[in-house]
C-alpha cells in the first residue's frame, strides 16, 4: 500500500512539475525605459511610441495553445523630484502593440485599460509606451522620475 502511495506521489510530482514549468515561462523583458529627455519649464513634451525614448516591452508565452492574455499597465500621474512634480499623461495616441518589432502595423490602445489579446505559444507581443508631460513653470530643475508596472496575466 505504501509503495502504491509513493508511486502516485511521484506521478503527481512529475506532472505538476511539468505543468508548472510551462506556466511560469511568461517572460516580460523591458527593452527600453521611457525617457522624455530634456524638458523645459512651461512646455509640453511628447514621446510617441515610435520614438527611441518610448518604453518598450517584449513579452513571450510558452503555454500550450493560444490563450487570451491581458497586459495591465500601472501608470503614474506625475514624475517626481522631491516635493516637486511634473504631470504625465498616457493615452492611445502614444501607445501601441504589435507581434513584430517594427514601426509598421502597430495597433494603438489605451494604456489606462488592460490590453486583452490572444497570444500564440512562442509568439512575441511588443508594447511601446510613450506619453506627454506638461511641465509647470514653478518647479525646480533636475531629474524627475517615476515607474510603470506592467503585469501580464494568462486568462
Amino acid at each position, binding site marked *: 500500500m505504501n509503495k502504491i502511495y509513493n508511486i502516485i506521489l511521484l506521478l503527481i510530482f512529475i506532472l505538476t512539475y511539468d505543468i508548472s514549468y510551462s506556466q511560469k515561462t511568461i517572460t516580460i523583458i523591458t527593452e527600453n525605459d521611457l525617457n*522624455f*529627455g530634456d*524638458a523645459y*519649464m512651461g512646455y*509640453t513634451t511628447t514621446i510617441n511610441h515610435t520614438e527611441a525614448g518610448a518604453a518598450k*516591452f517584449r513579452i513571450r508565452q510558452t503555454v500550450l495553445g493560444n490563450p487570451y492574455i491581458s497586459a495591465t499597465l500601472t501608470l503614474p500621474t506625475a*514624475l517626481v523630484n522631491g516635493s516637486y512634480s511634473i504631470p504625465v499623461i498616457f493615452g492611445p495616441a502614444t501607445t501601441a502593440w504589435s507581434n513584430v518589432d517594427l514601426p509598421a502595423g502597430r495597433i494603438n490602445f489605451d494604456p489606462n485599460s488592460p490590453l486583452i489579446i490572444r497570444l500564440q505559444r512562442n509568439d512575441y507581443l511588443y508594447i511601446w509606451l510613450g506619453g506627454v508631460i506638461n511641465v509647470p513653470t514653478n518647479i525646480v530643475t533636475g531629474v*524627475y522620475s517615476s*515607474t510603470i508596472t506592467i503585469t501580464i496575466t494568462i486568462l
Partner: protein
Amino acid sequence: MLKHAMLACVLINGIIFAQNHSKTLVNIKARLIEGTAISIIDHKLQPEQFSKIAYPQLSNYNSDGIFVHISGYKNNVMVGYRYFNFSEFDSIKANRFEQMIGTHSTLQYINDQGNCLFIYEPFPDSESMTKEKSHNKICYISLVYN
C-alpha cells in the same frame, strides 16, 4: 524522507502553478533644464539694436534680417542664425519645435536629402517678440514642425 521532499515539491509547484502572471517595472525619466524650449540668445548684440532691427525687417530673408536655418530630425539639430555680419550655430533638439507652432510665422520648407530643413522667420507682430523679451536679449522664434 524522499516522500516528504516530493510532497514539498508538489506543494511548491502548486503555488507556482497558480501564478499565471508575470510583471516587471520600467522607469520614466525627464530632465528639467533651465531656459526656454527655443530661444536664440545673442550676447553680442545690444538690446536696442536688436529690437530696432527685428521689427521692421524680419519679414524678408535678407542680410538685414534674422536668418534661422534648422536641419535634422529630432536630435542633433543645428540652428544657425545670422544677424548682419554675425552668425552662430547652436545645437538644439528639433522635437521641441512642435511645441512652438504659431500661426504668426511664415516658413519655407526645403527637403535636404531626407532631412527636414526649415527656414523660419519670426513674424514682426508676433506676441513673443515683445520689447521686454528683446531687452532680455532673447529672440523667441515661432517655428512649425512639419
